[in-house]
């Protein structure tokens, strides 16, 4: 059976039989799309299985990649820096014949957005392209980190979404996926009332509801989408 199984897996575009170690909950966005696709297409014309209409991009594979990074503890204490984390998403799981068409970063919080004490608290978020670490004794190859995103946000949001399609395509094209660095710091604005009593640390205390990050990646399998096009 093993030969037939490997041939069948190959025809399904899988090089080996997956063996998950710690099955994670199914992301709700994938479950919703899966349920919707089980329904027959509303219009008479055939649904295009090589396009993800929910994101309006070409693609027949949608992955939610878990963040394999770690929290960072910088040497010098920076009172207003609440969180610094290296994010790393392993794009090598995409097979060679797949073309990445979209990548969306989601930062999730678990806080109850109606938590009165910190309503209106404003934070600043920065996302950097992680620099390549210099080999010992050689100068740093890249001057500083490349800032990708900088924005402020109020703590009411359950999750924040960022389009990183360009960055992810660059990672794949140039095989230099060193991940990202996420920084969240308390902004002086709007936080005075909330934090006056405890100072910067108490400002940061309200960001402890940071939950996790994940990268939703859409890709198009040239092998599977081209074949069906030819037949059609």
């Amino acid at each position, binding site marked *: *059976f093993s030969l037939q*199984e490997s041939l069948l897996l190959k025809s*399904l*575009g899988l090089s*080996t*039989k*997956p*063996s*998950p*170690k*710690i*099955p*994670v909950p*199914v*992301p709700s966005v*994938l*479950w919703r*799309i*899966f349920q919707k*696709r*089980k329904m027959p297409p509303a219009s008479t014309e055939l*649904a295009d*299985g*090589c396009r993800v209409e929910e994101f309006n991009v070409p693609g*027949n*594979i*949608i*992955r*939610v*990649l*878990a963040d394999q990074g770690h929290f960072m503890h910088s040497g010098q204490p920076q009172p207003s820096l609440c969180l610094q984390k290296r994010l790393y998403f*392993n794009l090598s*799981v995409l097979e060679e014949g797949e073309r990445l068409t979209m990548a969306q970063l989601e930062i999730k919080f678990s806080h109850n957005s109606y938590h009165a004490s910190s309503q209106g608290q404003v934070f600043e978020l920065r996302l950097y392209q992680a620099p390549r670490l210099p080999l010992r004794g050689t100068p740093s190859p890249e001057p500083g980190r490349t800032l990708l995103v900088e924005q402020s946000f109020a703590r009411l949001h359950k999750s924040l979404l960022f389009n990183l399609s360009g960055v992810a395509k660059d990672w794949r094209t140039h095989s230099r996926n060193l991940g990202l660095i996420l920084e969240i710091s308390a902004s002086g604005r709007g936080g005075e009332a909330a934090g006056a009593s405890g100072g910067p640390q108490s400002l940061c205390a309200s960001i402890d509801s940071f939950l996790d990050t994940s990268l939703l990646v859409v890709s198009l399998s040239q092998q*599977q*989408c081209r*074949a*069906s096009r030819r*037949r059609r």
Partner: protein
Amino acid sequence: SAYNIPVTPSNLCKPRRLYISFSDVGWENWIIAPQGYMANYCLGECPFPLTAELNSTNHAILQTMVHSLDPEGTPQPCCVPVRLSPISILYYDNDDNVVLRHYEDMVVDECGC
């Protein structure tokens, strides 16, 4: 696992029910959903004359005619899928990521000669 629901026996070319159960092939620990699906398959005769519901090509019509004249020399046309549907599969990959993948032409809806 193939099972039949009693229908009027017909040996004409048409879809036959075939349910593919992923646990039957030992894939239940990495496929999240569905647990299986109706793939079906085509089976049956393509006799002369070919009727309209047999979804036949012009060539098949020709071949049945030649078969009726020379059964030993020319076989009947084949009974094959002519309309298929896609399915989507949710599964875990080797990195425990959740993947939703769309596969074209996985369910036989119609057969033809």
